[in-house]
């Protein structure tokens, strides 16, 4: 049976639209699933109030925390600070928790150590990225990278 060209293109278009529709429906049905209760929380880049008020030092700081409803062992929580550049973003500082440290195990592991002193008052936009690796129930698991929510300019050139 020969299908006329015009009708054939209409049929192909209909099939194409239908296949897209089913893909969308299928994705929507698959994605929600059970929500994980292990996650990384990254704070926004900020000028450390403690250092500024108590020591008169200005520094940009990003804090992060790895939380889980299961006990996390030997957590390596990595926090990286970047600054926004004109053509590309620039690495500023990275710090990780030491997995050998007993404080790197638990339901809540913190990395409050990532900071960089300001060299001048030049307005700069920063953001932080964090991810972690941990042993949970004997399995080595890694989170996806999480980025800080707000990147507002700070008077802190590095």
């Amino acid at each position, binding site marked *: 049976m020969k299908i006329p060209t015009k009708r054939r293109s209409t049929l192909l278009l209909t099939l194409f639209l239908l296949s897209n529709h089913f893909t969308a429906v299928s994705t929507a049905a698959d994605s929600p699933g059970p929500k994980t209760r292990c996650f990384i929380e990254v704070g926004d880049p900020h000028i450390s109030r403690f250092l500024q008020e108590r020591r008169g030092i200005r520094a940009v700081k990003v804090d992060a925390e790895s939380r889980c409803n299961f006990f996390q062992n030997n957590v390596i929580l990595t926090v990286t600070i970047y600054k926004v550049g004109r053509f590309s973003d*620039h690495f500023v*500082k*990275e710090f990780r928790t030491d997995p*050998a440290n007993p*404080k790197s195990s638990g339901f809540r592991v913190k990395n*409050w*150590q990532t*900071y*960089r002193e300001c060299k001048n008052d030049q307005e700069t936009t920063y953001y932080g990225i964090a991810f972690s690796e941990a042993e949970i129930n004997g399995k080595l698991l890694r989170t996806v990278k999480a980025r800080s929510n707000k990147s507002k300019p700070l008077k802190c050139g*590095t």
Partner: protein
Amino acid sequence: MNDYSGTEKSEWEERFFGLILDLGESQSERYKKQAIELLRAKTIRVPIKNSIGFYKLELFDCKFKISHDNGESFVNIGRTRIGWRKQDKLRDLPGFFAHTEASTILDVE
């Protein structure tokens, strides 16, 4: 990130930054010598408490690793961007030494 106990965080920051600043003052001569040695050799090993710190200097950054088994294995801990000029490196390295040493000392305690 607003549900930390404010006291817990400020107590921790007091100890952490207090130690960094104390080390920066008390060890300033050692840090200057370390920076010069790192510039020359590109890598150095430094005893920190019962561990060994390893610093590697590259053109635009300095990496820090730690070993708790007498140098048999090292774990990456920190990395900082650093200016390419010698004077930038000599200025920035002492602060990085103090940061990494304070972190190691507080982890051990």
